């Protein structure tokens, strides 16, 4: 195990967590007109997930959530930082060892149709991970594939022979989940796994995921732009803004007492706690557009605190100095010079 760039990254320490992401940074070179620029998609983020836990990662489109997910999976490899999975640094692995370790991390994608090869039959799609890893004979794989389909609530005899375009969005996503489970992973990354589905179907799929977690003792990294969705499934929540994590903490705590102005803004944008599970996807989409228009470009992020250009509480210090994550309570960290909690005189006790 060697760290990719020893001068920059500190030596790898063993980790008690299932997933331990340290100082993850991902940059891309892009062409702007005739010159090349560096886009910093994810900038020095760290978090951990314990076995059996679900971490929700929220933020608006373009904030770097999906990039983070893919960087964890080394596809593409992160520019800097470590990803310790089950005590092993994935950034130091390549070839066969990487393939073997990564088998325990699987992903459920946002667009179920894109994640399924349109030319393959459902039963083959589900069995493919087994086939790639040469697990069992053709017959065993067929049986396992049927079991998995059963597990995600699809009748293998009805759906096994179909091609993805003959499925509904919810059905296709169930196939995607079955496929992700084929190799019995420890960690499943759900990258906006329900956001492309109808709201009614969203709930079904969320319930399925929750049920699977209990039955199979899975660990989730649950990525979404919708705080309401995340709240349902997460033990802990991280909030991302423009490639950085600005707040992370227990789910209830974050929702009840947001410490970062951005988190507060996001929460305020949810019409009502009751309405979020309802059918106002339009308002969510509308809000996203509104914020996205104002968000600065990751090509040229603001100095200091990245949120300061939109922050009502921004002060001179915010421009000069980038805030780092610091604890504002047990398991609750925030990256803000003027966190909301501290501003409030009577700090509610916690248990």
């Amino acid at each position, binding site marked *: 195990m060697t760290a990719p760039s020893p001068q920059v990254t500190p030596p790898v320490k063993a980790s008690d967590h299932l997933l331990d992401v340290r100082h993850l940074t991902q940059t891309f070179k892009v062409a702007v007109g005739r010159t090349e620029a560096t886009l910093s998609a994810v900038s020095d983020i760290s978090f951990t997930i314990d076995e059996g836990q679900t971490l929700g990662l929220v933020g608006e489109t373009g904030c770097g959530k999906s990039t983070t997910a*893919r960087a964890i*999976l080394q*596809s593409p490899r992160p520019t800097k930082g470590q990803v310790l999975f089950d005590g092993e640094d994935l950034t130091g692995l390549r070839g066969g060892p990487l*393939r*073997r370790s*990564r*088998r325990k*991390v*699987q*992903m459920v*994608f*946002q*667009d179920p149709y*894109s*994640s*399924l*090869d*349109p*030319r393959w039959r459902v039963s083959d799609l589900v069995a*493919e*991970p087994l086939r*790639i*890893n040469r697990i069992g004979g053709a017959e065993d794989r067929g049986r396992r594939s049927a079991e998995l389909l059963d597990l995600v609530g699809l009748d293998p005899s009805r759906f096994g022979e179909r091609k993805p*375009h003959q499925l509904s969005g919810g059905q296709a996503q169930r196939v*995607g989940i079955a*496929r*992700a489970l*084929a*190799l019995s992973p420890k960690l499943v990354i759900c990258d906006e796994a329900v956001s492309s589905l109808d709201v009614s179907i969203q709930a079904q799929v969320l319930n399925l995921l929750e049920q699977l977690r209990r039955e199979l003792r899975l660990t989730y990294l649950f990525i979404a732009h919708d705080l309401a969705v995340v709240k349902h499934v997460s033990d802990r929540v991280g909030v991302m803004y423009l490639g950085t994590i600005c707040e992370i903490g227990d789910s209830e705590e974050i929702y009840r007492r947001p410490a970062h102005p951005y988190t507060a803004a996001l929460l305020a944008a949810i019409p009502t706690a009751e309405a979020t599970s309802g059918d106002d996807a339009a308002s969510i989409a509308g809000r996203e557009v509104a914020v996205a228009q104002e968000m600065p470009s990751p090509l040229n992020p603001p100095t200091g605190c990245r949120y300061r250009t939109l922050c009502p509480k921004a002060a001179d210090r915010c421009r000069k100095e980038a805030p780092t994550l610091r604890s504002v309570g047990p398991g609750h960290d925030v990256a803000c010079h003027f966190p909301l909690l501290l501003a409030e005189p009577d700090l509610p006790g916690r248990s």
Partner: protein
Amino acid sequence: MADMTAAVSNRSVWEDRRLLALDWAVWIPTVLLVALVLVCFLGPVVFGLPAPNVTDLLHPRAGLGTSGHLLGTDELGRDLLSRALHGGQVSIEIGLGSVAIGMALGGLLGMVSGFTGGWVESLIMRVLDTFLAFPSLILALTVAAYLGPSEGNVILAIAFFTVPTFGRIARAGTLQIRQRDFVLSGVLAGARSWYLIIRHVLPNILGGLMTYGLLTVGVAMIVEASLSFLGLGVRPPQPSWGGMISEGKGYLSDAPQIAFVPGAFLFLFVALLNLLGERLRSRHAVGGER
């Protein structure tokens, strides 16, 4: 450029065969092409035509409808129908053969470069660009001149210059497919690049490649004719449509059928290929009609 972008789309034409079969603009040319191929390959035997190289120096340049020679004879008294059909075999073989080789080689290079990226991609693309920058006919001309006249060499010479275009199309398609989540999903499942290229990339770009290939078959047949025009076609007395046209060019005033019979066959075949290829391609393009 337009060819490449249209070459790959989410849904392939080959997918819904039933729908295709209902489109008269697809099945009419298909049926005619198959019929033409069958006539070329089986016709001489079925119709009991004279052998293509048997000359009758006593009766050269017979006109259309001469008894025993439906389409007349050429300058050596050979039966034009028989020669046109046998020439069709050679031309079709050259068209299909060169495209098959070009598609296989170009497709492979394009997929590998598109999927692998990095210096492999740069190297492959520079080599393909080199061939693309070479005036294609000149390339075929020098290769044909170098290899000497024979059907196999003509196939190689023409294949040579179809490689870069197929390579570019395959690469463009691969770049698109590579971004699709199912490729990442395969990677996460532990698949190696070769597996992904063959099981996922290839099937998804094949439709586009085949459609372009269909159009290229026509182009290859025309290039064969051009090579023959410059004296570098197949070895005589073996007929090919292109070779027959250039042989007949010297008798346009007193025996135009020598050039125009094979000319008509070539024209018909290539036109049908174009019709079919164009129709298939338009079905590819997002939005349908074109």
